[in-house]
């Protein structure tokens, strides 16, 4: 029981710090960095929910992000619909893509899902360039309206979305559902022989993951006020995967720590501009070799254990 209280306390403290930080240091720059970090947090958390729990790594999470962002862009500019429609619409579109990609590939064992997602994202990025008459090509779609005018209020909204999705996903991960997903990672065949519809659970978790990621994409579109094919890029997916690895796989909340840490590091590396992605790729290799458990979640585990007086 005490552990749960420590968890809750830590979460409330973290949320409070994140929410109050822009009031203490009043700068638009800081608000921008935190907004981006929170959006990356949403993406990382959603990636971790599907891939971390089931062990089916998704190399094309950018597909759902891009689909969500472009949906928001289209609705808002081409059909000039109210910006708030973007959120439900992007969730629906991302879910449609999740079903298209998930149903053929998640029935199967082996690496098909990981590679098909990678292919899907690469091809979608190409299609955005090829059909430039509709998608704006390299420039993408510009002139998207902000969801909330005040940057600070928008940041708080994004933070709230992040907190709600994290709470829901952590609750799901700690429920029977999450147990089944973790069991699938452990031994799929045994789950099947226990009468579980393994394919259903995998596809359903992909659908949830994609829906959240798509909504994150829409938030990003309304933050940047434009979308570009770069959203579909493999580096977007890899950035997210690196964040989850830094945070610690399958912990879900750790992914937020990873997203914050890496986004802030990126800002510190601003001067190195072009080296940013190189740093990410090398960091990923180093983590895979030396810190396969990640950084944030294991640190928290250790901290809470010492706080609770050695009880594990």
């Amino acid at each position, binding site marked *: 029981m005490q552990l749960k209280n420590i968890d809750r306390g830590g979460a409330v403290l973290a949320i409070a710090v994140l929410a109050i930080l822009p009031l203490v240091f009043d700068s638009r720059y800081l608000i921008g960095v935190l907004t981006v970090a929170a959006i990356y947090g949403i993406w990382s958390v959603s990636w971790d929910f599907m891939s971390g729990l089931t062990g089916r790594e998704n190399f094309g999470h950018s597909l759902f992000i891009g689909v969500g962002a472009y949906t928001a862009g289209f609705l808002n500019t081409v059909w000039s619909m109210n910006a708030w429609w973007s959120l439900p619409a992007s969730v629906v579109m991302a879910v449609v893509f999740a079903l298209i990609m998930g149903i*053929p590939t998640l029935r*199967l064992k082996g*690496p*098909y899902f990981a590679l098909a997602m990678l*292919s899907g994202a690469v091809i979608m990025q190409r299609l955005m360039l*090829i059909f430039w008459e509709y998608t704006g090509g390299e420039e993408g779609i510009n002139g998207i309206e902000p969801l909330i005018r005040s940057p600070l209020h928008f940041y708080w909204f994004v933070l709230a979305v992040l907190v709600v999705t994290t709470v829901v996903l952590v609750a799901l991960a700690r429920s029977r559902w999450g147990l089944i997903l973790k069991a699938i990672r452990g031994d799929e065949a045994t789950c099947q022989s226990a009468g579980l519809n393994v394919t259903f659970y995998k596809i359903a978790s992909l659908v949830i993951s994609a829906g959240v990621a798509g909504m994150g994409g829409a938030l990003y579109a309304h933050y940047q006020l434009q979308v570009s094919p770069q959203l579909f890029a493999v580096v977007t997916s890899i950035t997210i995967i690196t964040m989850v690895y830094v945070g610690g796989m399958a912990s879900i909340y750790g992914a937020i720590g990873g997203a914050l840490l890496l986004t802030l590091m990126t800002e510190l590396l601003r001067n190195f501009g072009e080296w940013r992605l190189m740093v990410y*790729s090398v960091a990923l290799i180093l983590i895979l070799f030396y810190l396969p458990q990640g950084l944030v979640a294991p640190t928290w585990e250790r901290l809470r254990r010492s706080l609770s007086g050695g009880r594990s």
Partner: protein
Amino acid sequence: MLEIVIFGAVTSAIYAMLAVGFTLIFGVARILNLAHGSFYALGAYGAYVLTSIAGLPLVVATPLVVLGVALFGMGVERVLIRPMRKSQLAVLMISLAVALVVEQALFLIFGSEYRNVPSFVDTKLNIGGVDVAGQRLLTLVVAVAAIGALYAFIQRTRLGSAILAISQDPEAAQYMGIPSDRIFGVVMALSAGLAALAGIMAGPFLSVQPSMHLLPIVKAFAIVVVGGLGSIPGSIVAALMLGYAETLVAYGISTSWTEIVSVAATLLMLVLRPAGFFGKRAAF
């Protein structure tokens, strides 16, 4: 009509060179190598550096580049992939990370603009009323020769039998005293060299820029799914199917839609026949 036959054959030849290496290293070592496209990109960039900057003739540069990339592939397998081989996902992650490191290195050194790789032959040939660049026909010939040589190597040499043995039954092969770790290095070198050769041959008529490694991975994956993971004859047949399907779409509908063919083929095949046309068989 003849146009479709010729251009389809050239496209298929490049795809086959890429897919054969990709499927070979999977069939033998169970390594799904997402850095495979990087070998192709390094081939094209290597040829560019040695000819345009170092001023070597292409005929000299080609074997140097192929050898260099083969050694690089061997190094990647030895240092990065081998410690991770227990988990297939870790291999996927690490090889994708390697691919991005290579992409970023190329970007930092050469920038994102397109580079020109010189061609072996500049003449245009006229076959039955169709103008074909000599380079494309040469690519076709080189691809057939390279894959033929690989086939002969695997079928006729001692090392080839060892590769075949491991692909059929890794444990039994090890009991027979075949040093599988060393063989994996050799196979990785073969696979990387073949991809580099494809990059050098296709470089003159493709866009050579840092992110060029991604599409080959998409195509190689589609081919391997259609042909069956690990089957080389399967990947050759599937390369022909994909090459011609794309050419037909380009001529019949529009070049815009060609990129969809590979993903559609992948998903369709996974629904209809996930094992691929040639199923799980030994490497050859």
